[in-house]
């Protein structure tokens, strides 16, 4: 400590000042991958225009690392900070004023965290949910069966495909406009697998225009697999799934063109949709196709509700795969969803009650921002 103090005096050219300094707190930034130290301070009544942040490591003099606004009360140092090395800090005002210099902080050492405690609430809910999923899957494997409310939109998918078959027309499957890294597109691909099995079984033409080459690649495999699963690989054609474009409105123009030229009997709009939702759904309505839409994008739901015959809202969309496949284990995961929903409703009600009587603990624990 003595040498550090001398180093400070020599490098900054300062004499020990009798002016009251203010404390500077330095500590490892929590919940990160290391290499960062957080500084905080209570500024003097009249702070300077800027602070120069000085840093020293053992055996080395203080050196400036950054200049920050005088109005700030916190700073995170991520300038070449090494994990495991203790650093001391000091704030020097700019322009310099001995009365405004901070104390030398105690040594702080950066280290990487193995768990982000800020996500503890998410971890707890995820862990409970996972435990419930595993429990209900086990129950399903032992033969336990549950009754779920029928979802009209899902029942209608098979009817729509049947209607297309009777009319001798095709089914147009639109998987949204997002790429394959979007969970809604992944869910859409899973539903597409079930739809492909149905169209293969009924020998109904299927057309899947895709908005990205990655979605095209996956959709093609999924459709091929669906036809193979029901022993109709001979009915699969390579032009069933086609890549259109990644550009949003060019995709809409192409798909609307397909609708108007080929006039499919059923349009399935299942995926992530944005401004193009109504452009697609209204065109489908104009050609008289039975339309089933599903998305988790809340702002597009009203458009689908108005323009489509059936709309899968939010969680119904994600439940579609389990409903359509009727696989007991997948239905077990739906039971887990319902159970965690009850848990969340009780937690919300309890949180409201506690907030009303002035207890903020539960609400703050579940806050994610």
């Amino acid at each position, binding site marked *: 400590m003595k040498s550090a103090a001398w180093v400070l005096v020599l490098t900054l050219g300062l004499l020990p000042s009798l002016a009251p300094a203010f404390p500077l707190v330095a500590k490892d930034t929590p919940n990160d*991958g*290391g290499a960062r130290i957080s500084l905080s301070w209570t500024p003097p009544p009249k702070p300077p225009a800027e602070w120069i942040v000085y840093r020293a490591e053992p055996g080395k003099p203080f050196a400036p690392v950054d200049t920050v606004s005088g109005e700030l009360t916190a700073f995170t140092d991520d300038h070449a900070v090494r994990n495991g090395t203790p650093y001391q800090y000091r704030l020097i005002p700019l322009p310099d004023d001995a009365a405004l210099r901070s104390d030398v902080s105690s040594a702080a050492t950066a280290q990487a*965290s193995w768990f982000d405690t800020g996500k503890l609430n998410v971890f707890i809910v995820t862990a409970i949910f996972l435990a419930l999923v595993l429990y209900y899957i086990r129950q399903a494997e032992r033969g336990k069966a549950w009754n779920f409310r029928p979802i009209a939109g899902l029942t209608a998918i098979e009817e729509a495909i049947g209607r297309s078959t009777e009319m001798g027309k095709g089914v147009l499957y639109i998987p949204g406009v997002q790429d394959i890294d979007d969970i809604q597109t992944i869910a859409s691909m899973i539903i597409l697998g079930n739809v492909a099995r149905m169209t293969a079984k009924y020998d109904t033409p299927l057309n899947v225009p895709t908005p990205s080459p990655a979605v095209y690649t996956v959709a093609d495999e999924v459709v091929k697999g669906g036809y*193979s*699963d029901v022993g109709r690989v001979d009915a699969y054609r390579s032009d069933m799934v086609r890549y259109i474009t990644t550009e949003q409105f060019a995709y809409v123009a192409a798909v609307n063109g397909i609708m108007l030229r080929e006039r499919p009997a059923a349009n399935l709009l299942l995926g992530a949709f944005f401004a193009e939702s*109504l452009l697609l759904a209204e065109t489908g309505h104009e050609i008289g196709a039975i339309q089933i839409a599903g998305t988790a994008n809340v702002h597009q739901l009203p458009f689908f509700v*108005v323009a489509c015959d059936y709309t899968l809202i939010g969680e119904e969309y994600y439940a579609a795969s389990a409903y359509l496949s009727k696989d007991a284990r997948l239905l077990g995961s739906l039971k887990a969803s319902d159970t965690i929903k009850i848990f969340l409703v009780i937690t919300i009600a309890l949180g409201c009650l506690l907030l009303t009587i002035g207890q903020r603990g539960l609400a703050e624990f579940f806050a994610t921002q």
Partner: protein
Amino acid sequence: MKREVPLIISMAAGIFVLIGFFVPHPLVRTGYDKIQQWVIVVVAFTYVLGMANLMKLNLDQIQRRAKDWPYKIALVVACLATMAVGFQNGSHYLDDGTGFTWIYNTFYSAMSSTMFSLLAFFIASAAFRAFRVRTVEALLLAIAAFILMLGRVPIGSLIHPVLPQAADWLMEVPQNAAKRGILMGAALGVMATGFRIILGIERTYGSEGGS
């Protein structure tokens, strides 16, 4: 094997990404970031497949003189011309004044805006259907929309000062409550879908694939 290998890869990647969400340590985070980079590389390769599919289908239709085949010529020519100009501009193809930017601004932006502008007409026709009062729910929807629209235009406050407040209340209370309910349900659906894939019970996407 054709079914098992993709399932194992999906499960492993899913578990790793889930762990990476909670663990910021560089040992995990580096791998997490690497997976994201692999995704970019894989997606880049799919563009080759996508372009091959686009060309194959359209050239095939042109060759067969299928219905509307002249439009396919326009598509293929436009696609190849844009690519050629883009390659000629090199890595600065997005800079101002390049041929690629000119094509984008002159043709694509104009046509894209035209498509988007059609939304106004589609909204009008959809709203007309939505506000035909046939059920109690449709009546409630029509009343709410009427209050909201009047409350959000200057004449609303002139008709009655309560209208803007009523519009705000509709948006902040019943609309927000319904929206949050849907979002929470969807979030649980996302988690359930993720678990089904990670646990390997969702196999719809991993069929034998034509074997």
